């Protein structure tokens, strides 16, 4: 299969005061070229951790990657030299849109200055390798052209003036547009967008999602889109991967995901959405403590279908439909689909 990104068996822990938190447990995850993949799951299930692992920016002092591989465009990122990753993968081949556009700009520099710094290192024109000693004038002005053009493309009014502003002088929606522009500027192959609309109002969210989807399609960029809002995921993703407490539980194309969820957790999650049809249903119980996670399938303590098997071993991915993979011993059979 021609995947742009293939994460296999990734296991990551964090050293904390109360022991090792097993935040990712043998996670499998892939993204095809030009595909928008949603990574969904409740707060704390490890979405950001997975995203950061791909970017290679897990906190060095506390994160422990104990197994797995991250293959991107034919390179195993976990084996690469970190410096090389920083220069030609991060910000070049893979770019990033953060969750919170309010705090992701440095408050004491103008927006223009921050974009310029990014372009200095990550402009598509920049020669790959050790990075610039000097920011040549010619490149600087061609980069500026490029920036202004893209700012217009993301529908930011008066881009020249905008570059002279400080981040706090710009609204949240505009900041997120800037972030998207900055993610596109290096002409990457993959954009990792970590809950890019959570902090925004619905009307703004709709605008941003629209923009992101259009640009990704136009430019053939793959997007890893994390969110805990299933509605948002439905809007933008071609394919979904659901995570629960550090484990990937199900991965499917959007259509079959919403119509025929197979993993019990996915089913319950979808049922939790307020709906006129079935009222309000939650999932009883609580997410496990990741420093002492339950063995086997981590959802088993809250799962009404759980068996002894579930409590012992975590199922391997099994195909349950076209491109539809679930890791469940007792997959749902069309039961409870919304």
């Amino acid at each position, binding site marked *: 299969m021609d995947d742009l990104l293939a994460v296999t068996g990734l296991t990551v822990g964090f050293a904390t005061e109360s022991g090792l938190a097993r935040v990712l447990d043998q996670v499998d995850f892939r993204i095809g070229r030009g595909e928008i993949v949603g990574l969904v799951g409740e707060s704390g299930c490890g979405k950001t951790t997975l995203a950061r692992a791909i970017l290679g920016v897990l906190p060095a002092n506390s994160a422990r990657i104990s197994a797995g591989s991250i293959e991107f465009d034919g390179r195993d990122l976990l084996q690469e030299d970190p410096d090389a990753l920083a220069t030609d993968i991060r910000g070049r081949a893979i770019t990033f849109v953060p969750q919170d556009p309010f705090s992701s700009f*440095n408050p*004491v520099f103008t927006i223009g200055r921050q974009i310029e710094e990014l372009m200095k290192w990550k402009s598509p024109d920049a020669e790959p390798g050790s990075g610039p000693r000097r920011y040549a004038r010619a490149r600087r002005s061609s980069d500026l052209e490029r920036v202004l053009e893209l700012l217009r493309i993301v529908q930011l009014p008066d881009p020249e003036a905008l570059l002279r502003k400080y981040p706090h002088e710009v*609204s949240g929606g505009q900041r997120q547009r800037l972030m998207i522009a900055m993610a596109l500027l290096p002409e990457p192959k993959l954009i990792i967008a970590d809950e890019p609309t959570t902090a925004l109002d619905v009307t703004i969210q709709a605008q941003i999602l629209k923009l992101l989807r259009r640009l990704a399609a136009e430019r053939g960029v793959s997007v890893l889109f994390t969110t805990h809002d299933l509605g948002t995921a439905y809007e933008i993703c071609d394919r979904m991967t659901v995570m629960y407490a550090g484990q990937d539980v199900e991965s499917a194309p959007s259509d079959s995901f919403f119509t025929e969820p197979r993993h019990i957790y996915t089913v319950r999650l979808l049922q939790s959405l307020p709906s006129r049809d079935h009222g309000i249903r939650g999932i009883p119980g609580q997410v496990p403590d990741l420093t002492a996670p339950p063995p086997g399938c981590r959802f088993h303590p809250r799962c009404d279908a759980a068996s002894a098997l579930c409590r012992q071993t975590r199922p391997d991915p099994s195909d349950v439909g076209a491109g539809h993979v679930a890791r469940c011993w007792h997959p749902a059979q069309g039961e409870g689909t919304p």
Partner: protein
Amino acid sequence: MTGAAPRGRAGTLQPGLEMRALVLTVNRLVWFVPTLLGLLVITFTISHIIPADPIAFIAGDNATAEQIAALKAKFGVDKPVPVQLWNYILGVAQGDFGISLYTQRPIAEDLIARLPATLELAFVAVILSGVIGIPLGVLAAVRRNSWLDHALRVFTVSGLAIAAFWFAILLQLLFAMKLGWTPLQGRVDGWGPDPVTGFYIVDSVLAGDLETLADVIGHMVLPAVTLSFPAMATIMRFTRAGVLDAINSNYVDYQLAMGVPRRVVVWRYVLRNALIGTVTQVGLVFGNLIANAVVVEAVFDWPGLGLYAVNSILQSDYNGIMGFTLIMGTVFIIVNLLVDISHGLIDPRETG
């Protein structure tokens, strides 16, 4: 944080940076005068509860009652206290801090003659602490929990705990008395360079007199090191905390995730943010520096305001001490004013 509603909003009412700096300056200047007035009232009050009678002292051992009365009239001490206060304020407004009971010269003259010595020392100490303290603070933050961080932590903790006068004595004991590497005390051997600015380093450079320059610097070393030690510790501490705060922030996270080299992020971007916090501390640092200057100058016989104050103490020269307090207060207020203004300039979010 997830799902929380967005906070913050575009501030279209924000004036430009220059405007902000101006507004800040004016705002602070408006408070300058009342603060100074309050300070005057405090010093006046203090000097009016003194046990000894300064007039009797000025009058000398053999003054008669009439002479004392005449002197009281001359100095205006026979008037009601509010009138005296008013006259005192008027006097200070005109640069008249009274007469030194000890030297019999106008206090203002004495203080101005000594101000450059103190300022030169303070400047050198501040620069020294900044130039060394800031990079070390950044290093400590970047290499958090490394042996370097721990060593620097010991350093900062010591810097803040050590009594400056004792440290000064220790340095003297070691470098001047035992090893003989530096002069024991004083600002220069003999008379120093011809006064132009009053700063000996500048003056000896202006005069092209390298020998004197070397001598001046030699004399400067121990006092400057003593003074800058606690200041350096404070600066380091705040820089470290500031850098750590900044490093843990989302914008650094973002830049690193976008592959901007760590060293660039830290030294060009984080530092600026960290310095905002450090700059606000300069006022505090300067205050401590001045405080320490009093005793450090006494130990090193540095002919500045601190030594003047100590001599005034020994001579019970109340006018001298009050003059010193006032001028220190003024210098301190001005420094804080500058700090506020520069803070406003560095941090675009600051709105006064």
